[in-house]
Every structure is written in C-alpha cells, then in structure tokens.
C-alpha cells in the first residue's frame, strides 16, 4: 500500500502529453511500429531526493530473479529483443535497456541510485519495459526523429564515419545518437543541463499507453 500511496502522490507536472517524433518514410515502411516519443522537463539532474531513492528501493524489492528469468517471454521485453535481432544487433551482447537494468539488479542486489536522471530512467524502464534515454534539450534543434544515416555522416565526438544506413536518432540537423547505442558528444545530459528531453523508443509490439506511462513516470521522478 505504501508504494501505491507514493505513486498516487507523484506530482501532476508529469502528466504533459508526450510529443511524437518523425520516422523517415523509408525506415517506417521497412520497420512498421518503430516510433519515438518525448517530453521536455525543466529540471537538473543531481542527487536523487529521498522519495526517488525510496521508490527505487521499493522497485528493487519487487524485482526478483524470477522476473529476470521470465523477462524474455514478457511481451514488451520480447518485442525489443525481436527488434534488436531485426536490425542486426544481438540482444545478448548489446543488451536491451530493461535487460541491462535487470542484470545490474541481479549482480548488485538492488537498483543502485546514481543520479536523479538515471534513477528516473531506471524507474520508467523497469516499471514499463519501455526503452528510455535522455538528451540535453538545449542542444536539440527542431523535432526528433529516426532515420538512416547518410553517406559521410558521423556522430559528433566519435571517430570515423557512420556506415551508410545506420539507424540514428536525429534532430533536424544532425544525428544525436545511434538507435539503442552511443550518444554524440555534448548531446547528452550534463551537470549544467537545465532542460532535459526524455525520449522513449517504441518498437512494434509496444503499446502507446506503455510509452506514455514510461515518460510520465520518468518525468514525475525528475520533477519531485
């Protein structure tokens, strides 16, 4: 019951409807169901407040080995594993966000509090299974979307060009990150970031309501 009271007590700021990102027509035609949703939060990341740490502790107590073992058979984690296979990633090497967190939980015995942003993403991901990440909203130009990289494009701060056709999260000017991979230098959240863009990556089989819930949860944890 204590957990339910805490959920009910989360602030209303987290209820802003997420915006939908674009997906390049060639990608959307080939990978139906792929999508991006985001919400922008006026917040800084720092040490987590007590309520978020308690929420993380409560989540650790609810998440056991059995969950980790059965995870691959649950619809949303499975949908991400399938998508990883379909875009040429091995989810046993490049782990899906939920599986990465599950493995950390099993190794360390709990979800370790790192920063308010990391904790907010952990809570959003573990509660819903939806893949989340964050960018510095001040460094994003225009709307976010998913597309294949063009010849000669590279990820800022990373050596070499991206292989043509690499799936990236991009704004209207440049790639910001690999889809389910590295972030371009300076585009992620840093201690001076004042506006955080929370981004959910949706794949086929992940319902809209889960995406919205994931963003809502992370947003709420950041605005406590």
């Amino acid at each position, binding site marked *: 019951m204590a957990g339910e009271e805490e959920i009910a007590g989360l602030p209303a700021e987290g209820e802003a409807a997420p915006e939908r990102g674009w997906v390049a027509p060639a990608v959307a035609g080939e990978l139906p169901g792929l999508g991006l949703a985001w919400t922008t939060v006026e917040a800084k990341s720092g040490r987590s407040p007590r309520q978020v740490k308690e929420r993380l502790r409560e989540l650790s107590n609810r998440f056991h080995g059995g969950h980790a073992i059965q995870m691959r*058979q649950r619809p949303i984690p499975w949908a991400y594993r*399938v998508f990883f*296979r379909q875009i040429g990633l091995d989810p046993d090497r490049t782990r899906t966000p939920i599986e990465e967190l599950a493995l950390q939980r099993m190794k360390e015995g709990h979800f370790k509090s790192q920063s308010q942003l990391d904790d907010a993403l952990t809570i959003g991901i573990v509660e819903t299974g939806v893949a989340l990440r964050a960018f510095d909203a001040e460094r994003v130009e225009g709307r976010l979307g998913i597309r294949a990289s063009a010849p000669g494009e590279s990820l800022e701060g990373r050596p070499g060009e991206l292989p043509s056709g690499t799936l990236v999260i991009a704004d209207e000017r440049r790639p910001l990150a690999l889809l389910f991979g590295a972030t371009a230098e300076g585009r992620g959240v840093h201690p001076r970031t004042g506006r955080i863009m929370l981004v959910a990556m949706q794949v086929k089989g992940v319902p809209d309501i889960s995406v919205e819930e994931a963003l809502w949860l992370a947003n709420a944890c950041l605005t406590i």
Partner: protein
Amino acid sequence: MPDLLEHHDVVDSGRLEALLHGDERPARVELRRQVARLELELGELFASAFPRGGIEYSVAPAGGPRMLGVGELEEVRDALAGRIADVRGILADRGYVEERNREFLERVIAEPEKYHWVRISNEDIGEPGCRHWHARPRLGLIGMLMGWWRIKLSSGCPLAQGRAASRTNSPQAFELQVAQAAQAPWLQAAPAAARRAVSGRGPQAR
C-alpha cells in the same frame, strides 16, 4: 505478441506479384516474422533451462543498427534456428544425464551401504541450489568397519556474506544464480553434469 507473429496480407496475397516485380519487401516481412517466432522459442528455452549454466544463447550480430536485407535477415534467422537446435540438443543431453542421476540417487538413498562415498549434487540432477547427498559411514572409522552407512544431506550453499546470509536457498543465492545464468555466454566452465554427458560417465565416488 501476436502482432509480431501474424502473417501480413502483403505476404499472403501480394507475394507472387511482388516477386514478379522484383520487390523483396514481402520476403523481408516474412523473415522478420520468422525471426520473432524463433526469438520467442529461444526465450522459452532460456527460461526452461534455468538453473543450468554454461549454455551459449547469443547469435552473431549482423553489424547493426541498420535495416537488413533479405540475405542478412536469412543469416539471422538461420543462426537463430541453429542456436535453438544447439540449445535443445544440450538440454536433451543434460536432461538424459540428470534423469539417470536421479535414478542413481534413488538407489544410493535406498542402499547407501552399496555406494560408499558417492556424492550427488543438485547440479547433477538439474535442480537449483548447492545441496548434495553424500553416502558416508556413521561414526567414522567404526561405521566403516561395521558397515553402518548412511546418506548425509548438506546444509546448502556456502555463506555469501557472513552468517546473516546463511539461510538455505536464500534470495541472494538464487539471484546470484540468475545473474550467472544471464551471463551464460561468458561462462567458460561447463558444469559437472555436462562434462559427464560428454564423457558418458555417471556420478563417481569422490
């Protein structure tokens, strides 16, 4: 899950026409559906294999993230199918060895005096935990001379974090096993049961 597994109309009705026009998209759609189904099968095997470790589940990546062509999707599908066949084979071998070990354990429990010093662990019979059965003489040397043999059941896993974590089958011990199973690709040492499956030997007196 069904929407990832269902056949799309484009595959059923438009396949012939698309192929006639050299369009490979229906083939890619169908291959992605097959990959989804195989991934589900692999997930079921992963869950059913627990707590057995040392099983390789990974499949070579195809250099993503990017949109794969028909040939690459076929490679992913074939690699997944091959991996599933491998895992099934390993589980069948281990299942056979574990079944034989269980039968052997029943005989040892029934007549410990015939199986001096035999030790069988949970791992040998495919169960989680560190318990083992050991045929030992009662009262040491006297029992050996008099033929008083009995089965001694171990108290469980070694302490992981001092006496506070001493409960048998504690959540910590279980979760450690889960983490180890999840890291199966990196586990090098094959369990004793698997080694026996390869060598064809049953549990030995130790």
